């Protein structure tokens, strides 16, 4: 039996549901016959074989998608009689009308004989895994289905797992205090004489999606910031995102300017961003939207910086897609990856039609452009899209991966996520609610963060020795962004997280990750600090489908895992040998000096 994750097991012990939580009904006699069929894979698989361990599903209930797409009646199918057959791919559909999208390996598809009706529950998880439970007994099956459904569609955040999770590990460092803005600012302070930490947003009154502390030009006072906030979408006035120590140039980010149709302007806004320019220098504004979209935005009160008012800035429009376009892309991609029967042409055309890699290329290109402006052109930049909470953050954070060696370390990457995603107000709660299997249109759902992780993975693949973390670290972050026992990714911004009192009531992901025992799993054995700027290739031939995420449950990675282990062994052995050689050399040297001492008198 695959081992359950420690936090799964421990939750089993604390499984008493919260008040008001639906109490799951699990008939004792049934549970032993519950089978988990396909997708028994790696350490995270759950085998549900006894009533006790069915409880182990609860910790993961937050991993499940919502509503009927998951365990709705459509997926709960009953077969009238005994079934015993080696199913072939073609029979699959007949047998389980609701299970059309599951990809199985045929050799594993053996269904033992049961007497009586058999119910099938298909659970589609947010990490793209599909689990199928065959449960004898119609009533039991329905009960389990409704329990799972109820538990996976909790209305209130405070009923979610992080609020009940009790860590079984010793907290060495409280992750809630690992990356305070003040500390991050300290890192820069030696180089920054022109910047200051402002608490203008202390009560979240100036900008609800900003943290209480932001870094702004020293020359601009808080009153001016308040005025600028009224001119920027969502009150997101330009703040410092990254300071390039090499030449003192900066990346700033903000929401779109609210110029509207009559070309409103804001002197303070102009003053603010001009304050970042050196005398005689020009800067770049990267608008992540194409020009026509930016123009359309004016009708809704938004807009872009007019040349006339920002003569020292050159504006470049890129086209990074947003919201439902990205979500549709993800749905198509995952659907295609789950279909093992399609022929080559269909696979390639579906991969193309999903546009996923096009989005990757577009985001990476924009990030490279931003990095290029900074490092090569020696120009400061301001990046924004519409709200400045999605594509803007993809670009600012990836540019830092390219430019800043620290952000390629584990600690630095965590700080980057804390700063550029969590503090910067990426609405995780809205964006990462349901993942790829939801069938109801979710307006705010969008894999913005997953795309960012995928881009990091692409760079990691091209510079496999320049990152302190490995692929598993990125996969882990993806999982926790969508479903977690930790409070880190709850809420849409700092303000919400404060109201939820997450620091007091939940555990931070970083508290768990940054323990040596966990870190070892996420450490790249090939890491060799690389202090240079790393320019990835964005040619389509250089970009690849992230198999570790998208094909994870659809293929065996046994041989790849073994090869990875062998690689680690070689590296370990190398270290061991070097240590031994050094020790022996020292011994020999000692012996030689002793000999010398003995011989000389």
């Amino acid at each position, binding site marked *: 039996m695959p081992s359950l994750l420690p936090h799964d097991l421990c939750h089993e012990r604390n499984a008493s549901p919260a008040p008001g939580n639906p109490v799951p009904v699990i008939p004792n006699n049934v549970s032993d016959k519950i089978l988990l069929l396909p997708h028994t894979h790696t350490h995270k698989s759950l085998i549900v074989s006894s009533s006790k361990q069915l409880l182990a599903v609860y910790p993961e209930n937050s991993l499940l998608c919502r509503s009927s797409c998951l365990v709705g009646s459509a997926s709960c199918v009953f077969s009238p009689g005994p079934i015993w057959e080696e199913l072939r791919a073609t029979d699959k559909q007949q047998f389980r009308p609701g299970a059309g999208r599951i990809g199985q390996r045929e050799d594993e598809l053996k269904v033992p004989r049961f007497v009586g009706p058999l119910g099938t529950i298909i659970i589609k998880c947010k990490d793209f895994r599909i689990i199928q439970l065959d449960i004898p007994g119609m009533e039991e099956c329905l009960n389990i289905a409704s329990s799972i459904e109820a538990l996976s569609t909790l209305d209130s955040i405070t009923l979610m797992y992080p609020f009940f999770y009790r860590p079984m590990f010793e907290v060495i460092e409280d992750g809630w205090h690992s990356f305070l803005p003040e500390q991050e600012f300290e890192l820069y302070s030696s180089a920054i004489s022109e910047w200051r930490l402002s608490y203008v947003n202390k009560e979240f009154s100036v900008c609800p999606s900003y943290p209480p502390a932001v870094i702004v030009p020293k020359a601009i006072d808080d009153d001016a910031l308040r005025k600028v906030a009224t001119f920027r979408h969502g009150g997101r006035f330009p703040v410092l995102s990254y300071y390039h120590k090499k030449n003192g140039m900066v990346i700033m980010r903000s929401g779109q300017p609210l110029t509207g149709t009559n070309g409103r302007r804001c002197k303070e806004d102009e003053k603010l961003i001009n304050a970042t320019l050196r005398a005689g220098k020009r800067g770049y504004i990267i608008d992540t939207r194409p020009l026509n979209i930016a123009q359309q935005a004016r009708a809704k009160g938004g807009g872009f910086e007019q040349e006339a008012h920002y003569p020292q800035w050159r504006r470049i429009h*890129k086209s990074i897609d947003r919201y439902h376009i990205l979500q549709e892309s993800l749905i198509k991609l995952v659907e295609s990856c789950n279909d093992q029967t399609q022929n080559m042409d269909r696979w390639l055309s579906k991969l193309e039609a999903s546009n996923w890699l096009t989005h990757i290329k577009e985001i990476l290109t924009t990030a490279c*452009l931003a990095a290029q402006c900074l490092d090569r052109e020696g120009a400061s930049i301001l990046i924004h899209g519409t709200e400045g909470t999605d594509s803007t953050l993809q670009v600012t954070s990836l540019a830092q991966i390219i430019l800043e060696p620290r952000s390629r370390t584990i600690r630095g990457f965590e700080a980057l996520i804390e700063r550029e995603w969590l503090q910067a107000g990426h609405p995780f709660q809205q964006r990462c609610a349901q993942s790829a299997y939801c069938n109801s249109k979710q307006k705010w759902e969008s894999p913005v963060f997953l795309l960012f992780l995928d881009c990091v993975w692409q760079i990691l693949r091209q510079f496999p020795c320049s990152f302190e973390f490995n692929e598993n670290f990125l996969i882990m972050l993806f999982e926790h962004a969508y479903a977690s026992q930790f409070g880190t990714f709850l809420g849409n911004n700092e303000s919400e997280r404060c109201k939820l009192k997450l620091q007091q009531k939940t555990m931070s992901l970083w508290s768990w990750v940054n323990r040596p025992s966990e870190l070892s799993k996420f450490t790249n054995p090939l890491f060799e600090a690389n202090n240079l700027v790393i320019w990835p*290739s964005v040619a389509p031939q250089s970009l690849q489908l992230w198999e570790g995420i998208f094909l994870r449950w659809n293929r065996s990675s046994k*041989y790849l895992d073994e090869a990875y282990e062998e690689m680690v062994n070689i590296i370990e052995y190398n270290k061991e040998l070097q240590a031994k050689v050094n020790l022996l050399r020292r011994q020999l040297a000692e012996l030689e000096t002793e000999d010398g001492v003995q011989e000389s008198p």
Partner: protein
Amino acid sequence: MEHIRTTKVEQVKLLDRFSTSNKSLTGTLYLTATHLLFIDAHQKETWILHHHIASVEKLALTTSGCPLVIQCKNFRTVHFIVPRERDCHDIYNSLLQLSKQAKYEDLYAFSYNPKQNDAERLRGWELIDLAEEYKRMGVPNSNWQLSDANREYKICETYPRELYVPRIASKPIIVGSSKFRSKGRFPVLSYYHQSKEAAICRCSQPLSGFSARCLEDEHLLQAISKANPANRYMYVMDTRPRLNAMANRAAGKGYENEDNYSNIRFQFVGIENIHVMRSSLQKLLEVNGTKGLSVNDFYSGLESSGWLRHIKAVMDAAIFLAKAIAAESASVLVHCSDGWDRTSQVCSLGSLLLDPYYRTIRGFMVLIEKDWISFGHKFSERCGHLDGDPKEVSPVFTQFLECVWHLTEQFPQAFEFNEAFLLQIHEHIHSCQFGNFIGNCQKEREELKLKEKTYSLWPFLLDDQKKYLNPLYSSQSQKSAVLEPNTVSFNFKFWRNMYHQFDRTLHPRQSVFNIIMNMNEQNKQLEKDIKDLESQIKQRKTKQTDGILSKELLNSVRPESPALKATLSLKEQALLPVNNVLRTIEGSSPAANRYSEYADEFSKAEPAVVSLEYGVARMTC
């Protein structure tokens, strides 16, 4: 030499293939008897063997000069701009002549001299001994024997002299059968699976037309079937698509009628012919040579080229073959039309799946010698060594190498060799530097006296073995294992390192593989060092009268505490100069980065419109 009019042109520009802003290097172009050489201002040399040139094209004159585009068979594409049209024309004409020789004797191999004496050269040719290989497989034995029927190439010119056939198949049966098969290529043994007692046999299509039959041929198939005591029936795999095979019947050829042959199971596997494969590769190269290619164009081009579909078809056929033998112990007869293209692909890949020996460096050489060279895969025609019919050129062997590469991707520890080995072999099927791949069959090679006049590739590869070793190879874990690759579509990927071998900007900047390979090498050296040091210490110790060093210090090295180990390696890394050399960060030097890929326009003075190489950004207002 008579083809070379101009040997040196200065101020030639070499354009970056994928740069839309015409980034270039200026240097000098030289033309030698065997190579085209370009030396740029940084003294970096680009050598192109004339035989590698697939096409030379002169484009329309531009303001900066006359563009010359050279496409190579190893998928290198170079784009020169020659300042004077006259020079360009001279080089163009020379290259046309030099890249397409009319006679075998003008190929590089006949002039290539690696400074070996005759004995060494002969030993090189004897390195791979097919008789030895059949012995390894376990033939001859009670069911299979060596036939002398083709000793003088009388029955089949394109087969080797030595052929293994079922013991009960008499000479008249063989002769009769050969008359009923295209080009006389009657069924013979390709691989014998000792423990299953099953065989892979190969032949060409039967001349069955709509109704013809041949008793001898039927007998021969029965004999093959009977030579396998483990299974009564045998498979006959026609590797062509059913339609093609049916069409062949009208020309008096065709496929076996199941009613006429007892106990055969007939199967089509649908690999397309050489013409389809040629144009498929052509399309693939067109797509991935596009400047500023979008992701969607890349994938739709990949799809419409059909290339990966063909690779999958070859792989699926090989898997079918391996399964028949491994799971059913059934012998399999494989053929296509002539039995030298698709048949070679399927037989060799099938054997590779079944037998771990072929996954070693030497075993892979044997496999190529056996299923490709000796059985008459027409290398010279398929690779276009001479100025011949362009319709005979086809990337059949390239596809085989690509299938092997896909297997190495799925089974990273199953192969003794690495990707560089495959690429090197691919390089040499076209280079004509060695004699192995020259000619179309053994008879022709003997007539060309290749063993006397040229050298064999294999000893040179073996000498360089270090470069081709897979550091992760584990001979133990999969020793007896039959490989069962998964051919779900998503497992097939574009082989960037083959088709963009020379486009360095597209590759990862740091190679895990190289690092591990070096580390493996270093480990061997360290092991040696440890032995040396230990013996030195021992010597000193015995010399010493009072052993001050405690014994435990000597023995404690292996199971040392991790803390001590860490401090040691940290402190004393400086002692080991190798360490630094080993882990230099490739591609992280400022000179090697590809900054200019994203936007070249920045360096120009304030254009009104900012256009970015990879971006769609345009600043219009």
